[in-house]
């Protein structure tokens, strides 16, 4: 495994984008999909594209209850191809991380690896942040402490039904960015975004104070990216739409062309152009 240099901080990346008046494009892929080697190549391609500001890598778990069919199928492909947590750290370590890389996984994966071993491996492999889809605030104390020790941002998730008091409690120690789930449901592409999303983003921003907020779930294309950035989010997370392209064996050029359109939508000028 390559020993990576000190990893890029999420806060610095968001600051840089803010100073340019841009939102962050956060692209998700499932590690090991369709194979570990190919996912390493895809991850590096996305980083090198210049369009992706944060790369979110899914570390597969066999029973992903927060994910819709597209990512479930990607996880199945990855596990069939022999993906595992050791390989996930090998891949993260081998990447030339010009942008911050974060992991998304489920708690049993962290638990079986060992909480401290997992966060130390994140640091060693240069993984900047960690999202654990099925670990609510109340159960996360030990992992949050381990993340702090390793200088890995523990990324909190809040949802439209997270009440105001609970949101303040959760986001009191927000770091890296805050993951706002756009809608009640699972990951996957959607035609339209929720009507109340603007209000939710406003609530999230307020509770997150200085921490950036990024919106995920159902962000299918440039229109949605432009919409959420226009509503005041600091970033947009696109997962299933990219995983769909990988599933279909889409060429690297076409994937790059797609993420380029996503990135353009995070820039204020494109928002202005879109409106005219």
């Amino acid at each position, binding site marked *: 495994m390559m020993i990576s240099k000190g990893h890029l901080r999420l806060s610095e990346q968001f600051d840089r984008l803010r100073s340019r008046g841009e939102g962050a494009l956060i692209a998700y892929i499932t590690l090991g999909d369709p194979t570990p080697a190919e996912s390493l190549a895809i991850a590096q391609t996305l980083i090198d594209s210049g369009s992706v500001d944060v790369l979110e890598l899914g570390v597969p778990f066999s029973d992903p209850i927060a994910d819709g069919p597209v990512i479930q199928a990607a996880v199945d492909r990855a596990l069939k191809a022999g993906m595992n947590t050791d390989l996930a750290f090998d891949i993260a370590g081998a990447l030339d991380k010009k942008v911050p890389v974060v992991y998304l996984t489920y708690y049993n994966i962290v*638990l079986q690896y060992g909480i401290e071993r997992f966060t130390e491996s994140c640091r060693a492999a240069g993984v900047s942040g960690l999202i654990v889809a099925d670990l609510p605030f109340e159960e996360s104390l030990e992992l949050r402490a381990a993340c702090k020790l390793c200088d890995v941002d523990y990324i909190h998730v809040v949802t439209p039904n997270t009440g105001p008091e609970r949101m303040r409690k959760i986001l009191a120690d927000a770091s890296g960015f805050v993951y706002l789930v756009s809608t*009640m449901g699972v990951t996957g592409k959607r035609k339209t975004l929720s009507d109340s999303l603007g209000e939710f983003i406003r609530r999230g921003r307020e509770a997150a104070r200085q921490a950036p907020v990024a919106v995920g779930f159902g962000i299918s294309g440039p229109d949605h990216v432009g919409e959420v950035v226009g509503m005041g989010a600091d970033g947009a997370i696109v997962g299933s739409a990219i995983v769909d392209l990988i599933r279909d064996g889409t060429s690297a050029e076409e994937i790059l062309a797609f993420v380029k359109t996503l990135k353009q939508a995070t820039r204020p000028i494109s928002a202005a152009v879109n409106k005219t």
Partner: protein
Amino acid sequence: MIESRYGEYGGTYVPEMLVPALQDVAAGYEKYRNDPGFRAELDDYLKQFVGRPTPLTLSRNMSRKYGFKLYLKREDQAFTGAHKINNTIGQALLAKRMGKTRLIAETGAGQHGVATATAARALGMDCTIFMGEVDIERQKMNVFRMRLLGAEVVAVKNGTRTLKDAISEAMRSWVTCLDDTHYLFGTAYGPHPFPAMVKDFQSVIGREARAQILEQEGDLPACVVACVGGGSNAIGIFSGFLKDEAVRLVGVEAGGCGIDSGKHAARFQGGSKGVLHGSYTYVLQDKYGQISDTHSVSAGLDYAAVGPEHSMLRDIGRAEYSYATDDEALHAFRELGMVEGILPALESSHAVAWAIKNAEELKGKTVIVNLSGRGDKDVYTVAKHMGVDI
């Protein structure tokens, strides 16, 4: 407050979206669980609709043949044919009081699905059941029963297309309809408050059994045996005897094709501590935490994790956990039929099998086996194993 942990086990390992929903369920349960009106309504349904109390039958022929006094707690005589209805009526009544109009549930063999559909109909609620495509194929009769009761049955086509995936899909669906829908979880498993609440609604088995054995035998039994899938029938009957330290409590898991074969669902034999579907407990998994495929001839025991309270009872030595293989369970199924005239569910057959296997040790003692369900649903499976075409 109801405890969310059993020692180190249990907890609430779910996506944030489910947390407020589970808090609502916990609050509703907290509000009504000791409410005299709620309890009276539940008792009335259990008596008039479910047909409780179920008998505690002295199994005369088996006792003579095997040399110990075998009593059977007859949950097979509860309406719809298994103990599942105790919990579905309880949760459905609670959901109704909480203003919900629709029930969703997972099911493996279909017993919990049928019991949920029944409760929904009885209380005038809508019902959707999630069931793996493989299980739908295996349990066509129960699928049709659910449809006859007006339930929508959704085929779950992802993962292993069995119970595990049906639970995942029910959880995924629940978050999209929290306002009007209660997720009626079927066993003493999952995120808090389900393990505590399901135990509560199943504890009627243990209360009855304890009173009945004292009345019929004048003494407590030496041993209480139950099969353990998620563990709701077991925790239900154990709960009546937990404080009677002299009563030996035995849970019997599914040994499938044998522990060494790897094709089984005996979490306490091949499992380790981990998290699945909201709970920290013993789980069958690989070293990276990927959940293993399980196997049992009985769909109701075919699940990779065990109820968190069982993990604690095992740790503190209050209960012990063994297993019976598919072959042993099939043998017990036929034996109880031929000797006593009772066809038990293949799940319950595992508990019967343990008692038969340990007859020598049990000699002269009084034993209660929880006959959690009846075997009608399993006759096709048994025929297949016997090489008989029906």
